[in-house]
């Protein structure tokens, strides 16, 4: 049906597709994204793996065209690099546990809140979310440095006799990292929590479950999908942490992100850097699958959270 109005422009746009089937058109619509992911994600990573399988070279970042697994062996055998891997995972686990536990609590408080309080709590989470990593990390320096606010306050009040070095130190890194992932974790949990019917908790209380118990028995199983997403995100980002260790950590705080940067851009030893990356990715992938499986046994369907 042709229309003699300005719509005819769109009609002409449409006519080449008129004969295509619905799913063909659907494919066409999704093709920009698919193409994008292929070109900007899949291909670069193929390159990454390829480089990791090349020989190291003195004068070049890597020896093109060669093939060896020497870099992988080197990474796996190096005590130094093992230490780095361990540090990364330890930071990941600690930050994740802290973040998810606190996030669950805060999400619950937000769920139960109304009106202004609810908006305030959400604001307190959404604003840091939209703030750049640099600021979020750097903000802890004036607070936690030896000559910073916290120390000065505690010294003045008399609770401390000498300044405590939280920054630069591993404790500072953990605090900073938790601060960074907390908003994401909280929102992941909250988005599921907000769909839970409060009536269920009332029913549990009516049947004799106290406050804590009614949460554990009724709410927890339902928010497992949100907790799973929160855990996975927190874990992935904490293992791959860069800014917190760099800015808030001491020399001994060396996660693999910093190591990769050094190997890549300072030492120009690309095979090692990429091999380390690939190993970390594999380990992380395995961990994430583990998290997904373990948590999934406690409750509902994760696809509800996405």
């Amino acid at each position: 049906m042709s229309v003699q109005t300005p719509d005819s422009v769109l009609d002409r746009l449409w006519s080449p597709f008129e004969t295509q089937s619905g799913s063909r058109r659907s494919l066409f619509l999704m093709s920009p994204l698919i193409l994008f992911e292929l070109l900007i994600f899949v291909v670069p990573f193929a390159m990454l793996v390829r480089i990791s399988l090349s020989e190291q070279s003195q004068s070049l970042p890597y020896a093109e065209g060669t093939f060896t697994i020497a870099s992988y062996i080197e990474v796996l055998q190096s005590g130094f690099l093992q230490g780095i891997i361990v540090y990364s995972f330890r930071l990941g686990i600690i930050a994740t546990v802290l973040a998810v536990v606190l996030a669950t609590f805060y999400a619950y408080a937000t769920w139960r809140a109304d009106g202004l309080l609810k908006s305030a709590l959400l604001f307190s989470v959404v604003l840091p979310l939209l703030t750049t990593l640099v600021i979020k990390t750097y903000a802890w320096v004036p607070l936690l440095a030896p000559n910073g606010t916290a120390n000065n306050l505690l010294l003045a009040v008399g609770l401390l006799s000498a300044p405590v070095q939280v920054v630069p130190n591993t404790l500072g890194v953990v605090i900073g990292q938790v601060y960074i992932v907390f908003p994401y974790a909280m929102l992941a949990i909250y988005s599921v929590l907000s769909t839970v019917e409060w009536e269920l908790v009332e029913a549990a209380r009516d049947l004799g479950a106290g406050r804590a118990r009614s949460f554990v028995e009724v709410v927890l199983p339902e928010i497992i999908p949100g907790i799973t997403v929160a855990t996975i995100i927190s874990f992935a980002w904490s293992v791959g942490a860069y800014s917190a260790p760099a800015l808030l950590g001491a020399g001994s705080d060396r996660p693999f992100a910093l190591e990769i940067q050094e190997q890549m851009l300072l030492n120009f030893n690309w095979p090692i850097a990429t091999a380390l990356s690939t190993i970390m990715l594999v380990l992380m992938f395995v961990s994430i699958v583990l998290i997904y499986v373990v948590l999934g046994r406690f409750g509902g369907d994760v696809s509800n959270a996405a």
Partner: protein
Amino acid sequence: MRLESDRLGIAAFRLGYVAIFVAMLLPLFIVIATSFSASGNLQFPPEGFSLRWYRAFFADIQWLRAFDNSFIVGIGTTVVATFMGITAAFGLEARNSRLGDLLTPVVILPLLIPPVILGVTLLVYFSALGLQSSYLGIVLAHSLWATPLVFFVMQSVFQRFDWELRDAGMDLGANPISVFVYVILPNVKNGIVVSALLAFIISLQEFVMALFLSNFQTQTIPVLAWNSLRQSLTPTVSVVSTFLVLISVAGLAAAALAVNLDFVAKRLS
């Protein structure tokens, strides 16, 4: 009568979330406060009150250029991510295909990969293509993160959309493109606005990938902030931070006016 332990429990609960509330906002507040410091030290409470660092900032061409860069990249990312996110989400919703189920994990994957790895990988890749340190490179990298967000926001928007409206449109003689432009777009524009805003802000504040993919000319605000920090801790960074926080707050306010905060919070997760 209400048990004491009950009251204690409630008090502890309140104390808990207030403490977290303070912990979330205090660092930002401190940073903003230090930007007004009269001295060059990064102390809180700041020693004296002065706008000198603000003046220094506006005089510093590096920062001004960084702002330009950030906005250029931000707009670019918004355009790219919004276009891809909307078309893909729409294509998915028009028909529930298996391709869609396959697409979701692929789209999410970049978000889970440590940004350092992404940054370094793309650096190598773009160098091979001659795109290193270019605006395009940074835009594409940021889109890796922004597009999933737009995609999911629009996906849930399209899910809530009353598809009967489309049927009505077609029944009245509009071809599918017209239907999209005249029937669907007006009804989902809230979702589009929100996801575009979010894409912009994500790009604005993305730091790690930009660190690797920009150079002296093209560095964005977070990158310049980071580099300045590495050299010396001065309140200039606080000034920049204040502006960034204000921009985020403004963006939030704009989104909150379009929809309420609860909605935005849920979309972000």
